[in-house]
């Protein structure tokens, strides 16, 4: 009998997990955040946001695929972070990712609910109620009480109920499918999730829109659609639509999911990356161009493949794996420095090379689904150093298991975060980046 050998995914996964452990801090997983909308380079404490979706689901997959109890323990530890971080309002502390430490983050709190409810389902009746209660309270008192709009029969993105964001509503739907499964009460889906999914379909481009066919518009404000199409966010609609199809048997949900993935893959660049945005006039924006977040696109594609729709994404998997460095973290993106102009220095932006828990969780969750049968190897997070740029200034980033430090050419520390701390010890003004 031949000995089982580890796959590149096994090796990447254990290294990524080792890095994730370095991001533990009192109350959860911390670290700075780089994002399209905004940055959170100053608040580095625990973020009870969508990172918990990928972290909990990733650990549960690892447990399921390896049978090793340690992974379930880590999934429970993450679930307990959420229990302890739930506020009287039933929101979660620091749940706004790039706007942390703000609360009431969307789709972040719904993503936390997905983590909690998946954990409850995995645990069966043992220890399940506390996670269900936590998620159900958030769903009832925040998502339904504050964001449900009876008139449009869908979840809005603000209390004024004049904005609708399909991918965020899709995440809420996913939480509701799980709540229905856990409680056995179909009303969560029939009354809330399916009508919301129907509204998402209204945001999908038809055949007449040529290459945009299948794309879901990013959002609407006062019923005015914003005609920007984000492949990553579109992918996050796919998994909810598939749940809608599974639940209702309505073919339009499956059809819509397939069209979304066709749209995404049709805009793929050769090396497996996608534009961050495709605009209605056919132009694209690749500043930044996601790496760790590709996990969510790959996951949506893999889930769709179980319905027989197979789109090739080998290049994307390779891009994801190539984004891993010696820390074990997977880098956020390429191209941040080109956002507002040219990158004359041709160096990565600091935000490109940051390892962000709320992006790496997506890679972690995807990779955890593909571990081989061989026992997983041991791994240790190492040190990573790279020259990069921020606002035109050449800098050097160093990350170790203990700290993240950025120095300028004169070796002056411009930014230093001791892992585990809520705020960096040094953050010069260029790091107060919005």
């Amino acid at each position, binding site marked *: 009998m031949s000995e089982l050998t580890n796959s590149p995914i096994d090796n990447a996964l254990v290294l990524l997990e080792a890095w994730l452990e370095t991001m533990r801090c009192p109350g959860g997983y911390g670290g700075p955040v780089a994002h399209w909308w905004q940055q959170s380079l100053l608040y580095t404490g625990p973020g009870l946001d969508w990172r918990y979706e990928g972290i909990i689901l990733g650990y549960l997959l690892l447990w399921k695929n390896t049978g090793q109890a340690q992974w379930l323990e880590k999934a429970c530890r993450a679930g307990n972070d959420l229990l302890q971080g739930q506020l009287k309002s039933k929101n979660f502390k620091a749940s706004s990712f*790039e706007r942390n430490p703000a609360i009431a983050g969307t789709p972040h709190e719904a993503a936390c609910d997905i983590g909690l409810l998946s954990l409850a389902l995995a645990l069966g009746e043992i220890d399940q109620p506390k996670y269900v209660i936590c998620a159900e309270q958030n769903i009832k008192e925040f998502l339904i009480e504050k964001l449900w709009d009876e008139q449009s029969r869908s979840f809005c993105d603000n209390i004024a109920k004049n904005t609708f964001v399909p991918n965020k509503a899709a995440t809420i739907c996913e939480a509701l499918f799980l709540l229905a499964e856990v409680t056995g009460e179909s009303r969560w889906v029939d009354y809330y999730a399916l009508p919301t999914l129907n509204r998402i379909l209204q945001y999908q481009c038809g055949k007449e829109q040529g290459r945009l066919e299948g794309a879901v518009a990013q959002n609407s404000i006062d019923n005015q659609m914003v005609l920007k199409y984000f492949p990553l966010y579109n992918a996050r609609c796919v998994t909810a639509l598939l749940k809608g199809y599974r639940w209702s048997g309505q073919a339009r949900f499956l059809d819509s999911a397939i069209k979304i993935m066709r749209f995404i893959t049709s805009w793929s660049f050769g090396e497996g990356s996608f534009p961050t945005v495709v605009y209605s006039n056919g132009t694209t924006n690749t*500043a930044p161009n996601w790496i760790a977040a590709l996990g969510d696109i790959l996951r949506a594609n893999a889930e769709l493949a179980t319905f027989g729709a197979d789109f090739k994404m080998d290049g994307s998997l390779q891009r994801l794996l190539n984004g891993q460095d010696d820390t074990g973290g997977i880098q956020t993106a390429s191209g941040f420095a080109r956002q507002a102009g040219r990158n004359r220095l041709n160096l990565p932006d600091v935000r490109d090379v940051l390892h962000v828990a709320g992006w790496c969780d997506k890679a972690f969750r995807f990779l955890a689904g593909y571990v081989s049968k061989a026992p997983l190897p041991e791994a240790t997070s190492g040190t990573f150093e790279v020259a990069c740029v921020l*606002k035109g200034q050449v800098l050097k980033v160093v990350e170790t298991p203990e700290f993240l430090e950025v120095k300028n050419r004169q070796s002056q520390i411009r930014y230093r975060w001791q892992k585990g701390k809520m*705020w960096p010890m040094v953050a010069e003004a260029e790091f107060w980046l919005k």
Partner: protein
Amino acid sequence: MTADVSHIPFEYLYALDAVMPLLAKNGYKTVLCNSQELLSELNMRLESVENRAVGGASLWIEPQADDWQAQLSHFSTLITSGNTLLIIASRPLARLLPERRLWQGNPLGLQPGGIRQLKKRLPLSGFRLEAEHGIHTLLSTGINSFSTVLGKAQLPSLFDRLYFAARLTYRASGWLSSLSTVSLIEATAL
């Protein structure tokens, strides 16, 4: 993103975040917040930071027109040599922020010349001005307004590029800092 309804204009949150590394580094000595509306955001951030009897930076939020001199002299007696006083104050342009129109109090910084008066008084009270930052600059507001026009003109890619350019000019020091909605001042006790 957040669906929070705290109604606090972003520049105040940005200023609070900006001072946190200094307050967290060695713990804080004194925090005086004259703006009721910012208290919960401030407390949320201070939760994890140590309050120290000796040393540490101090924070003064929204000095008021009627008693700022008394409060400044109080700080000058409290803060020992070499320690930092951080001041977050609205500027006259903050009057344009719809979310803060109902805020209470009579901030010094909202008055024309109010911040200048405060800065002049710092050395007389035993402080050296180290840095001044303007947050939410007029330049970034202008770029954002232009980008909104482009967005309406169905030029979304240009809209985004300008939006990012506006982000880069959101904070400024030097003369640009006076044309902003919020001021963040850093001073050291002599």
